[in-house]
């Protein structure tokens, strides 16, 4: 049985509820349903035969004792079907509820897309609901703050321009204690690689920049990091439905890479950022594929290990399992490369079941964890199924090559006492690689 939840109060939702008019709602829904969306929405809504076969795909549905309201189609019924049926004439309370459903009960992980006989993209529908809620101003407070940060600073965490450079130089100096000639080259024009990270790395996970700088230097990569805004590849505006800000943030990122005349962008172990640069942001800007090749960290490690540039001193000993983040596995096809890397690094690697495209979501991604503390308990209680899946592996270490997954799995790990140590690939690589000068 799933544990009971307490009532949740989100300040921004309450504030918005007080001032939202039915006229504004109607205008927002009309704009999105008739002006912005097109054939997909029409086909999805008219094709769904209410068969419920999508239900078993959803970790929230499974974790909440198969409560029908949490099935993917159930969430669509509680949001967009109603909006269409009532021709946009819904109440502010309805929009508040729709915002909670779309922003905190769906991770837009697209697992259900693989279970629908027609391939109906419920994630797309939920993001459409978020877009409507955004136009009504009805977005949970914490993720809205993140979107504000993107708008103001072009990064997710209100990192100031000088703090960014300062953090990189701090990590460079730290790492020089270990490798005296280590550099984090800033704005080096014509480099082969621009390395980009997400806002939380300089904010509170600077050691990840250290690890990566060490790896780049050890393999003698021709790389650089921008000293200017555009260094952050993350994008919560994509998840609040603030497409305009999403476009600005992505343009800044791509233009920074263009300015530095790099051949490709390598990005850290992040899932949603990959979705933003590879799938959604680029398309908003009119690019079918990213204007500059994007290489996810998993792919880059694969390349380094396959070509023998990265040498391993001794394989990682502990029993390890692997989480498949939706945005790079279902979204980027890196399932086999991820396994190649895991096997190359670890002696004892076991799969969790189900895996690859069918892996269960972390319930943190899709902006859900970014809705912050008010929704934390709900988020953890809505993913019991993941805890069971993790426990069943009997592994000691869980590799999660995605920031959101990493944080979400940490919460689940803690609540359900799974007893796993959760790591990024880069942490394991840093630990076991051959270090020059040693």
């Amino acid at each position, binding site marked *: 049985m799933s544990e009971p939840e307490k009532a949740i109060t989100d300040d921004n939702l309450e504030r918005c509820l007080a001032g939202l008019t039915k006229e504004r709602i109607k205008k927002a829904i009309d704009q999105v349903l008739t002006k*912005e*969306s*097109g*054939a*997909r929405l*029409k*086909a*999805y809504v*008219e*094709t*769904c*035969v*209410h*068969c*419920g*076969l999508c*239900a*078993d*795909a959803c970790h929230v*549905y499974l974790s909440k004792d*198969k409560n*029908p*309201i949490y*099935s993917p*189609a*159930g969430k669509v*019924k509680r949001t967009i079907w109603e909006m269409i049926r009532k021709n946009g004439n819904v109440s502010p309370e309805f929009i508040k509820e729709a915002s909670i459903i779309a922003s905190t009960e769906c991770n837009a992980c697209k697992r259900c*897309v*693989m*279970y629908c*006989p*027609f*391939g*109906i*993209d419920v994630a797309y529908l939920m993001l459409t609901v978020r877009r409507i809620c955004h136009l009504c101003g009805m977005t949970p407070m914490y993720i809205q703050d993140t979107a504000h940060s993107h708008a103001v600073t072009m990064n997710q965490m209100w990192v100031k321009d000088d703090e960014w450079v300062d953090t990189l130089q701090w990590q460079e100096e730290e790492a020089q204690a270990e490798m005296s000639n280590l550099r984090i080259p800033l704005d080096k024009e014509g480099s082969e690689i621009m390395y980009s990270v997400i806002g939380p790395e300089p904010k509170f996970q600077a050691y990840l920049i250290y690890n990566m700088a060490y790896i780049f230097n050890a393999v003698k990569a021709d790389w650089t990091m921008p000293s200017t805004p555009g260094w952050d590849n993350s994008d919560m505006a994509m998840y609040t439905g603030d497409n305009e800000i999403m476009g600005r943030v992505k343009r800044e990122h791509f233009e920074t890479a263009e300015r530095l005349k790099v051949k490709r962008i390598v990005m850290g172990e992040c899932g949603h950022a990959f979705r933003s640069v590879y*799938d959604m942001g680029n*398309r908003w800007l009119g690019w*079918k*594929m990213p204007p500059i090749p994007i290489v996810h960290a998993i792919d880059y490690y694969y390349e380094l290990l396959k070509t023998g540039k990265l040498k391993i001193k001794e394989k990682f000993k502990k029993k390890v399992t692997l989480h498949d983040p939706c945005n790079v*596995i*279902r*979204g*980027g*096809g890196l*399932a086999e490369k991820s396994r190649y890397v895991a096997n190359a690094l670890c002696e004892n690697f076991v799969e969790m079941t*189900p895996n690859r*495209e*069918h892996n269960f979501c972390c319930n943190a991604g899709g902006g859900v964890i970014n809705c912050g503390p008010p929704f934390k308990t709900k988020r953890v209680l809505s993913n019991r199924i993941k805890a069971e899946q993790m426990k069943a592996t009997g592994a000691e270490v869980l590799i999660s090559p995605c920031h959101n997954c990493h944080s979400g799995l940490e919460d689940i790990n803690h609540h359900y006492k799974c007893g796993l140590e959760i790591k990024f690939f880069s942490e394991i690589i840093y630990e076991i690689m051959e270090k020059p000068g040693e």
Partner: protein
Amino acid sequence: MHTLYNFVSGPLAWIAFLVFIGGCFYKLYNLITLTQQKESFIFSIMSVKYGLRSIGHWLTPFATVNMKNNPVMTVVTFVFHLSLFITPIFLLAHVILWDESFNISWWSLPEQIADILTVVVIAGCCYFLYRRLTDPTVKYLTSISDFILLGIVAAPFLTGFLAYHQLFDYQLMMILHVLSGEIMLVAIPFTRLSHMIYSPFTRAYIGSEFGGVRHAKDW
């Protein structure tokens, strides 16, 4: 009674077929122009290879994870849809009608087989009804229109079965049979039965997106 039969099987049948075919083309035309206007990137993503790969998997029984997870539903769905298509097209009585009216003719099913397939369709509808009423997840998603659609699909087969076996009033049953068949034809483009028209496209699109962009399977 006789004039009524002549009317439903004459002018009304013409209207039904015209609305059905015209409606299907209209819906498709609408979908394609809407794509052009709003989401033209879809054309750049569409891929014959990945579209067909996806359709192929979803047209093969038990070729997808979800089909394996729901074996009863998979068997019922496949048998139901096959019978639904095969029976009206290859029923001897229908073939004879085409022959008499337009002098075109094709292979027809042995009558006993057609009879069994008709029962299969009715049984399939009963199973879907049972599922809608008993499975809490499906029940939650069900609206009145779903029951009406089930009725629209079941009616031509039920009345056809009763007419063939000459149960109840034969002539009335024939009228009801023709009429309900026409209602179903007309309903296809304008209700959720339009999944008949849309599903190859939604499937092909998501197959292309998963195959060509995401480099992942969609089954």
